[in-house]
């Protein structure tokens, strides 16, 4: 009875033809890059898109950006080999290295060796500017948000300093802090008044100031933390096996060699908010690991 | 004469007394056996033991010399039962139910095919014809048929099975006279039904003394024990009275 209706048959055939067209599939080994989703997806898409093209040319392989939706998934993706080269924060980098033995630290930005977080507050909350760490307890009883739970600049270090000042995170309004998920979201939420104050990545804050996304009448920065080591590039231990001997070294040179002379590289560095990439050492992250264990994010 | 079914020393326990006691019975090929007794005497129980539905507490049931318990499913195919509640599959149609009678002879894929379409239509039509069921009902779901029509489907299924022995538990109750006649002619009177093989051996429980003349043998049960086992010719009306009044 179904096929007696010819019109139905024709339509069905047309519709099922949809299923027959296919895309060509990549068959050569692809270098998959990615990073923790600490900013809005459009920004990340642009940033990693440009970087993929640049690295692809420099290394003569096909490079693809693999987006991930949250911090822990990025660590898992690194562990399972779903992504080859990842831009991690301090904490997630430590977690990733613990789960994937032999992972290689490739590079960091010039600003990452001594990185800072900023605390921001909504102007109508009347939270004063903080001059030293002990004054952090003005945040008691306030609605406060971090970035992602696994963020170094958006949660780990701010929480560490808060606890050093004698405050507990259960002292916030509601007994808990909020978790916005990304630095951009923290700005939006504090600016709108959903939260009275928050902590985020200083570079993202400065970047948003420059691009005019910040409404001065609504939000201001109230404190800058002491320095710590943060973002860096982490690569899979087996890249040389898959892409040829010396590949990891070439990758490192490509990153370290980026400068403002080339137009494309200048764009990338600008999006990263840095002047160049520099080498990074494992020992830089010892303090991060210690604090991570103390707070419970590393077991 | 070969013995088709043999019940040896069967005991079935009940709540207060035995439902069947010391049953010894041999059914030979060609026997037409009538099973008589008052209600609750144990007729249905005996039929259930004979077709393997009930396992006796003591004693052996042998089919063609082999113990019923040990027999493979396929060999059971030679015993057909006409159940009182018919036991048709309500959601299936007539031809599927008739074919179900032949499941013992075929494999699983045949069984699947039966669920999906018409299988061996001609054979089924023959069985339907023999049962007096109009062929327009071939694809009618059984739950849409009347009581009499369902009875005919059960009959057709039995014919389809091509068994050696028929067991029937009061098959004539609740039937219109026309259907009773048809069943009588088919089961008990020697008849040529074109290509359909009608089993010649039958064990039937019934409450119709007027039909006894069609049977070769009569078995009477009182309180679970066989008290009469003889040819139907030699049966006196007084024997019947005693059978039904003894309590």
């Amino acid at each position, binding site marked *: 009875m179904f096929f007696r209706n010819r019109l139905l048959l024709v339509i069905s055939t047309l519709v099922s033809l949809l299923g027959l067209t296919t*895309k060509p599939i990549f068959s050569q080994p692809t270098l998959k890059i990615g990073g923790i989703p600490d900013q809005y997806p459009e920004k990340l898409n642009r940033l990693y898109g440009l970087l993929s093209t640049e690295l692809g040319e420099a290394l003569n392989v096909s490079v693809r950006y693999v987006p991930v939706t949250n911090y822990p998934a990025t660590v*898992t993706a690194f*562990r399972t*080999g779903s992504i080859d080269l990842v831009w991690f924060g301090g904490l997630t980098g430590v977690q990733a290295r613990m789960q994937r033995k032999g992972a290689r630290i490739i590079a960091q930005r010039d600003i990452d060796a001594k990185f800072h977080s900023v605390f921001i507050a909504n102007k109508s909350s009347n939270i004063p500017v903080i001059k030293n760490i002990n004054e952090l307890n003005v945040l008691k009883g306030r609605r406060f948000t971090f970035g992602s739970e696994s963020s170094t600049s958006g949660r780990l270090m701010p929480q560490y300093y808060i606890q050093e000042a004698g405050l507990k995170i259960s002292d916030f309004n509601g007994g808990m802090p*909020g978790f916005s998920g990304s630095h951009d979201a923290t700005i939006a939420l504090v600016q709108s008044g*959903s939260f009275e104050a928050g902590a985020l990545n200083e570079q993202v804050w400065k970047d948003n100031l420059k691009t005019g996304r910040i409404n001065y009448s609504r939000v201001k920065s109230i404190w800058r933390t002491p320095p710590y080591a943060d973002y860096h590039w982490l690569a899979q231990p087996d890249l040389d096996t898959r892409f040829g001997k010396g590949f990891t070294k070439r990758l490192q040179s490509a990153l370290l060699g980026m400068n403002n002379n080339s137009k494309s590289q200048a764009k990338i560095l600008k999006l990263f908010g840095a002047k160049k990439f520099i080498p990074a050492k494992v020992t830089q992250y010892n303090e991060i690991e210690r604090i991570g264990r103390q707070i419970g994010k590393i077991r | 004469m070969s013995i088709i079914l043999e019940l040896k020393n069967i005991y079935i326990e009940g709540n207060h007394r035995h439902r069947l006691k010391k049953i010894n019975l041999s059914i030979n090929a060609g026997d037409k056996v009538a099973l008589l007794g008052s209600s609750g005497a144990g007729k249905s129980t005996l039929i259930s033991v004979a077709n393997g539905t009930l396992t006796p507490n003591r004693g052996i049931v042998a089919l063609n010399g082999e113990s019923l318990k040990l027999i493979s499913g396929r060999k059971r195919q030679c015993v057909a039962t006409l*159940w009182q509640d018919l036991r048709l599959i309500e959601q299936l149609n007539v031809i599927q139910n008739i074919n179900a009678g032949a*499941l013992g002879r075929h494999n699983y894929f045949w069984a699947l095919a039966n669920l999906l379409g018409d299988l061996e239509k001609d054979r089924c039509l023959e069985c339907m014809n023999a049962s007096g069921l109009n062929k327009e009902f071939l694809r009618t779901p059984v739950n849409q048929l009347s009581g009499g029509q369902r009875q005919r489907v059960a009959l057709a299924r039995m014919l389809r099975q091509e068994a050696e022995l028929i067991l029937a538990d009061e098959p004539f109750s609740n039937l219109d006279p026309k259907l009773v006649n048809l069943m009588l002619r088919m089961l008990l009177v020697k008849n040529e039904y074109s290509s359909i093989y009608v089993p010649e051996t039958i064990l039937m429980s019934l409450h119709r003394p007027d039909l006894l003349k069609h049977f070769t043998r009569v078995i009477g049960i009182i309180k679970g024990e066989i008290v009469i086992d003889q040819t139907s010719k030699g049966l006196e009306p007084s024997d019947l009275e005693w059978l039904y009044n003894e309590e």
Partner: protein
Amino acid sequence: MALQRRMIRLRIATPLLTIIPGLALIPVCIGLIKGIHIGGIYIIFDFIKASISPSLETEVIVNSLKGIQVTISIAILSWLISTIIGVILGFATSNIFWSTFSGVSWIAIILRRLLSILRSIHELVWGLILQSLLGLNPLVAIIAIIIPYSALVSRVISDQLDALNHDALKALRNIGSGPLSALTTATTPQIFPVMTSYGGYRFECALRGATLLGVFGMGGIGTELQLTLQSLQFREMWTSLWILGATMLAAEKSIKYLRLHNHSIKQNKKGINLAYIFIVALLSICLKWILETKSDLFSSINLHQIDLPTIEGLNIALNSLNWLSLINSTLITTFLAAGIAIGTPPLLIMLMPSKRCLEIQSFFWAILRLIPPPLTALLLMMSTSPSIFVAAFALGLHNIGIMGRLLKESVESQKDNIFNAIHTVGAGERVSWLYGRLSAQSSSYLAYSAYRTDVLLRETSVVGVVGGVGLGWQLQESLSSFAWSEVYLIIFVFTILTMLGEAFNEQSRKIWLRSEDKQSSKFSVQT
């Protein structure tokens, strides 16, 4: 003795019992309002405003279409496979299967216990675990849905099989039919209608489940929704929501038409044809996706180990978390959400029973069904302090959509005679509805509510993640700290809670469905 007789025994009529749980709305609303702040209200307004002006940019629409393709494909594949496995397991765990073959049924019992454990873990939790094993692979979402769904289907089928009248089966065995042939011939026709209606329901669940898994990063339109919500791009979020809504609505309608087609009572020819076209479209979308991603699917299947639990680790986990308060907040969230979901639809219908109001309410319920609870919770969290009430409200809202539709369909199928009788006595529209339509269906509704509460318990693992409360929240925290011992323990506790819930559900079903015929009640199937 005399004292007992004198005590007034209060018996609450079942129709009222359906509305009383709505009282949960009171503490929840109070809690929400207490935590609310003006800045947040603007965000909610922005969200609602964006619903009528979704973004129509090409890139956004293309992204949403790609997303829905992935979600549809995941839903279809996981539904197909889980239904097939579920049927096989259903037979294998039914008593009648084993007694037909060999007479031992302890195998069925063991299998059933095992499956009930698999069933009590939400597909999201499976997804998060599988993600740790398989990485970023679309198979993760598919397998994560297959595991609990197969167990659910198997339970329904084995229950149905064992509840059948087995006389026909015994008769077939008797005449020498092989065991498998007899089983198939005698049982399949009888359980076929149940299988098709439950199968349709399972597909809707699969679609919703695939969307939810997407919210947690496993691809598809759920991921689009979560990303756009987090960056506060409401207009783009609504583009995806409308596309998702259209898909879910078309799926629901198609399933309804096809179900009627099988019963051949009321046939809507046009509707059935449209349904077929829709199904073919879905299948071709799925096929296209498979062809495009087949290399990705199987290239990275290497199982990575996660640490197995050690006694020491479990001990530490046992002591380091505040279990009592976690379990407490989980249960409170469940009951508050259940109260909202169960009580609100009958209350609303009773207050506004006219046909037009019913249509409007239907529309709102469809929207509530559409938005996954974590997203509602996220949205609420931007406007009020995180608390139990946020989680309960988000879960409750979503489930109002489900319970509401169920209630509406069952009440509409209720015959008019009682309603008319009460109406002619002079009772108002509302009272007539209460007596004439709700009363007869209230027992089934309550039975289904008990089942839904059990599902809600499982779903708290989903919102807790964003609501900051309960075991669900702790699960996410522990997963992001990669504290496996804690994860195992949390899942274990969840499983125990859910199994207790299932047992409780059984008992209440026996009470509510005592007088109902198993066939006539719409709700009895959906276990």
